[in-house]
Protein backbone atom coordinates (compact mmCIF):
# COMPACT_ATOMS: atom_id res chain seq x y z
CA UNK A 1 0.00 0.00 0.00
CA UNK A 2 1.56 3.20 -1.19
CA UNK A 3 0.16 6.64 -0.55
CA UNK A 4 2.71 8.63 -2.48
CA UNK A 5 1.66 10.08 -5.79
CA UNK A 6 4.20 7.79 -7.43
CA UNK A 7 1.74 5.00 -8.06
CA UNK A 8 -1.22 5.37 -10.39
CA UNK A 9 -3.23 2.62 -8.69
CA UNK A 10 -3.47 2.90 -4.94
CA UNK A 11 -5.49 1.70 -1.99
CA UNK A 12 -5.03 3.90 1.02
CA UNK A 13 -6.62 4.96 4.29
CA UNK A 14 -5.87 8.67 3.88
CA UNK A 15 -7.93 11.09 1.84
CA UNK A 16 -6.59 12.31 -1.51
CA UNK A 17 -6.59 15.71 -3.20
CA UNK A 18 -8.38 15.63 -6.57
CA UNK A 19 -6.37 18.64 -7.72
CA UNK A 20 -3.03 17.08 -6.77
CA UNK A 21 -3.94 13.79 -8.43
CA UNK A 22 -4.99 15.56 -11.65
CA UNK A 23 -1.82 17.69 -11.70
CA UNK A 24 0.21 14.50 -11.22
CA UNK A 25 -1.55 12.92 -14.20
CA UNK A 26 -1.02 15.98 -16.38
CA UNK A 27 2.71 15.30 -16.19
CA UNK A 28 2.14 12.19 -18.34
CA UNK A 29 1.86 14.23 -21.53
CA UNK A 30 1.54 17.71 -22.98
CA UNK A 31 -1.13 16.37 -25.32
CA UNK A 32 -3.87 15.86 -22.76
CA UNK A 33 -6.95 17.78 -23.88
CA UNK A 34 -9.65 16.05 -21.87
CA UNK A 35 -9.70 14.65 -18.36
CA UNK A 36 -12.77 12.85 -17.06
CA UNK A 37 -12.80 12.15 -13.36
CA UNK A 38 -15.18 10.03 -11.35
CA UNK A 39 -15.33 10.63 -7.63
CA UNK A 40 -17.43 8.39 -5.41
CA UNK A 41 -18.49 9.85 -2.07
CA UNK A 42 -20.28 8.60 1.01
CA UNK A 43 -24.04 9.03 0.64
CA UNK A 44 -26.27 9.49 3.66
CA UNK A 45 -29.05 7.16 2.56
CA UNK A 46 -29.06 3.83 0.75
CA UNK A 47 -32.31 2.07 -0.15
CA UNK A 48 -34.16 4.24 2.35
CA UNK A 49 -31.80 3.35 5.20
CA UNK A 50 -30.02 6.20 6.99
CA UNK A 51 -26.27 5.69 7.13
CA UNK A 52 -24.07 7.22 9.78
CA UNK A 53 -20.71 5.95 8.55
CA UNK A 54 -19.04 3.54 6.15
CA UNK A 55 -16.12 1.17 6.44
CA UNK A 56 -14.23 -0.35 3.55
CA UNK A 57 -12.07 -3.46 3.71
CA UNK A 58 -9.96 -4.86 0.87
CA UNK A 59 -7.95 -7.94 -0.01
CA UNK A 60 -4.39 -6.58 -0.08
CA UNK A 61 -2.35 -7.39 -3.19
CA UNK A 62 -5.35 -8.79 -5.10
CA UNK A 63 -7.20 -5.45 -4.98
CA UNK A 64 -4.12 -3.54 -6.20
CA UNK A 65 -3.58 -6.17 -8.91
CA UNK A 66 -7.15 -5.79 -10.17
CA UNK A 67 -6.90 -1.99 -10.22
CA UNK A 68 -3.68 -2.29 -12.23
CA UNK A 69 -5.40 -4.60 -14.71
CA UNK A 70 -8.33 -2.17 -15.07
CA UNK A 71 -5.93 0.73 -15.65
CA UNK A 72 -3.94 -1.11 -18.31
CA UNK A 73 -7.00 -2.39 -20.14
CA UNK A 74 -8.64 1.06 -20.09
CA UNK A 75 -5.55 2.75 -21.53
CA UNK A 76 -5.25 0.11 -24.26
CA UNK A 77 -8.90 -0.43 -25.17
CA UNK A 78 -9.98 3.20 -25.12
CA UNK A 79 -6.73 4.74 -26.40
CA UNK A 80 -6.19 6.85 -23.31
CA UNK A 81 -3.01 8.75 -22.54
CA UNK A 82 -3.16 7.68 -18.90
CA UNK A 83 -5.43 6.64 -16.04
CA UNK A 84 -5.18 6.55 -12.27
CA UNK A 85 -7.40 4.76 -9.76
CA UNK A 86 -7.39 5.37 -6.02
CA UNK A 87 -9.68 3.69 -3.50
CA UNK A 88 -9.80 4.47 0.19
CA UNK A 89 -10.32 1.86 2.89
CA UNK A 90 -11.20 2.09 6.55
CA UNK A 91 -13.56 4.58 8.10
CA UNK A 92 -15.46 6.95 5.79
CA UNK A 93 -17.78 9.72 6.93
CA UNK A 94 -20.80 10.92 4.94
CA UNK A 95 -19.58 13.28 2.22
CA UNK A 96 -16.04 11.90 2.31
CA UNK A 97 -14.17 10.80 -0.80
CA UNK A 98 -14.17 7.04 -1.39
CA UNK A 99 -12.87 6.36 -4.88
CA UNK A 100 -11.25 8.44 -7.62
CA UNK A 101 -10.73 7.47 -11.25
CA UNK A 102 -8.96 9.89 -13.60
CA UNK A 103 -9.00 9.23 -17.35
CA UNK A 104 -6.75 11.42 -19.49
CA UNK A 105 -6.97 11.56 -23.28
CA UNK A 106 -6.30 13.76 -26.25
CA UNK A 107 -10.04 14.13 -26.79
CA UNK A 108 -12.92 13.96 -24.40
CA UNK A 109 -14.99 11.13 -25.88
CA UNK A 110 -12.65 8.29 -24.95
CA UNK A 111 -12.12 9.65 -21.44
CA UNK A 112 -15.85 9.54 -20.63
CA UNK A 113 -16.18 6.00 -21.97
CA UNK A 114 -13.05 4.74 -20.21
CA UNK A 115 -13.90 6.34 -16.86
CA UNK A 116 -17.43 4.93 -16.87
CA UNK A 117 -16.16 1.49 -17.83
CA UNK A 118 -13.44 1.58 -15.16
CA UNK A 119 -15.73 2.28 -12.22
CA UNK A 120 -18.14 -0.47 -13.35
CA UNK A 121 -15.20 -2.87 -13.77
CA UNK A 122 -13.83 -1.91 -10.34
CA UNK A 123 -17.16 -2.77 -8.74
CA UNK A 124 -17.25 -6.06 -10.63
CA UNK A 125 -13.68 -7.33 -10.19
CA UNK A 126 -11.94 -5.63 -7.29
CA UNK A 127 -12.09 -7.30 -3.86
CA UNK A 128 -13.27 -4.40 -1.73
CA UNK A 129 -16.18 -4.62 0.67
CA UNK A 130 -18.36 -1.96 2.24
CA UNK A 131 -19.86 -2.08 5.71
CA UNK A 132 -22.59 0.45 6.46
CA UNK A 133 -23.41 1.60 9.95
CA UNK A 134 -27.13 2.29 10.29
CA UNK A 135 -29.53 2.65 13.21
CA UNK A 136 -29.91 -1.15 13.02
CA UNK A 137 -26.19 -1.74 13.43
CA UNK A 138 -23.42 -2.66 11.05
CA UNK A 139 -24.22 -4.43 7.79
CA UNK A 140 -21.96 -5.73 5.05
CA UNK A 141 -23.42 -4.43 1.81
CA UNK A 142 -24.59 -7.23 -0.53
CA UNK A 143 -23.09 -9.67 1.98
CA UNK A 144 -25.52 -12.34 0.89
CA UNK A 145 -24.54 -13.61 -2.55
Amino acid at each position, binding site marked *: MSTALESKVRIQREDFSVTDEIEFMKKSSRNIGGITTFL*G*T*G*RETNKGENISELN*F*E*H*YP*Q*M*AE*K*KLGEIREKAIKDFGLIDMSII*HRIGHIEIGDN*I*VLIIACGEHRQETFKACEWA*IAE*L*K*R*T*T*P*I*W*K*RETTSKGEV*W*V*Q*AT*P
Partner: protein
Amino acid sequence: MVTVKYFANLKQMAGKEEDQFDINEGTTLEQLSDLIKQSVPQLGDMVREKKVMISLNYDVVPLDTVVKDGDEIALLPPFSGGI
Protein backbone atom coordinates in the same frame (compact mmCIF):
# COMPACT_ATOMS: atom_id res chain seq x y z
CA MET B 1 0.50 -26.31 2.72
CA VAL B 2 -1.87 -23.66 1.39
CA THR B 3 -3.33 -20.58 3.04
CA VAL B 4 -7.06 -19.83 2.83
CA LYS B 5 -8.10 -16.27 3.67
CA TYR B 6 -11.55 -15.10 4.71
CA PHE B 7 -12.83 -11.58 4.02
CA ALA B 8 -15.63 -9.25 5.11
CA ASN B 9 -18.64 -11.15 6.51
CA LEU B 10 -16.93 -14.49 5.84
CA LYS B 11 -14.19 -13.48 8.26
CA GLN B 12 -16.89 -12.81 10.85
CA MET B 13 -18.50 -16.21 10.14
CA ALA B 14 -15.16 -17.96 10.42
CA GLY B 15 -14.15 -16.04 13.52
CA LYS B 16 -10.64 -15.89 12.06
CA GLU B 17 -8.74 -14.32 9.20
CA GLU B 18 -7.28 -17.44 7.64
CA ASP B 19 -6.62 -21.17 7.82
CA GLN B 20 -3.70 -23.23 6.65
CA PHE B 21 -4.17 -26.72 5.27
CA ASP B 22 -1.81 -29.50 4.23
CA ILE B 23 -2.81 -30.77 0.82
CA ASN B 24 -2.06 -33.77 -1.37
CA GLU B 25 -0.73 -33.31 -4.85
CA GLY B 26 -3.52 -32.72 -7.37
CA THR B 27 -6.01 -31.35 -4.85
CA THR B 28 -8.66 -29.17 -6.48
CA LEU B 29 -10.39 -26.22 -4.86
CA GLU B 30 -13.53 -28.33 -4.71
CA GLN B 31 -11.66 -30.94 -2.68
CA LEU B 32 -10.09 -28.21 -0.57
CA SER B 33 -13.60 -27.12 0.39
CA ASP B 34 -13.89 -30.36 2.42
CA LEU B 35 -10.96 -29.22 4.53
CA ILE B 36 -12.50 -25.77 4.84
CA LYS B 37 -15.75 -27.42 5.92
CA GLN B 38 -13.94 -29.24 8.72
CA SER B 39 -12.62 -25.88 9.92
CA VAL B 40 -15.71 -23.72 9.29
CA PRO B 41 -18.69 -25.90 8.26
CA GLN B 42 -20.79 -23.04 6.89
CA LEU B 43 -18.00 -21.77 4.62
CA GLY B 44 -17.23 -25.17 3.14
CA ASP B 45 -20.86 -25.44 2.04
CA MET B 46 -20.86 -21.92 0.60
CA VAL B 47 -17.88 -22.77 -1.60
CA ARG B 48 -19.54 -25.96 -2.91
CA GLU B 49 -22.81 -24.11 -3.51
CA LYS B 50 -20.89 -21.32 -5.29
CA LYS B 51 -22.25 -18.70 -2.93
CA VAL B 52 -18.78 -17.18 -2.68
CA MET B 53 -16.12 -16.56 -5.27
CA ILE B 54 -12.78 -18.16 -4.77
CA SER B 55 -9.42 -16.72 -5.75
CA LEU B 56 -6.09 -18.46 -6.26
CA ASN B 57 -3.02 -16.27 -6.07
CA TYR B 58 -5.10 -13.10 -6.64
CA ASP B 59 -7.27 -14.24 -9.55
CA VAL B 60 -10.79 -15.63 -9.37
CA VAL B 61 -10.73 -19.20 -10.66
CA PRO B 62 -13.19 -22.10 -11.12
CA LEU B 63 -13.59 -24.84 -8.51
CA ASP B 64 -11.86 -27.53 -10.57
CA THR B 65 -8.56 -25.62 -10.43
CA VAL B 66 -5.71 -27.62 -8.87
CA VAL B 67 -3.80 -26.04 -6.01
CA LYS B 68 -0.19 -26.57 -5.01
CA ASP B 69 2.00 -25.99 -1.96
CA GLY B 70 2.44 -22.32 -1.13
CA ASP B 71 -0.71 -21.14 -2.93
CA GLU B 72 -2.83 -18.38 -1.44
CA ILE B 73 -6.56 -19.01 -1.70
CA ALA B 74 -9.28 -16.62 -0.59
CA LEU B 75 -13.03 -16.84 -0.15
CA LEU B 76 -14.59 -13.66 -1.47
CA PRO B 77 -18.13 -12.48 -0.79
CA PRO B 78 -19.70 -10.29 -3.50
CA PHE B 79 -17.70 -7.09 -3.89
CA SER B 80 -19.15 -3.74 -2.86
CA GLY B 81 -16.35 -1.28 -3.51
CA GLY B 82 -16.72 1.89 -5.51
CA ILE B 83 -19.76 3.67 -4.13
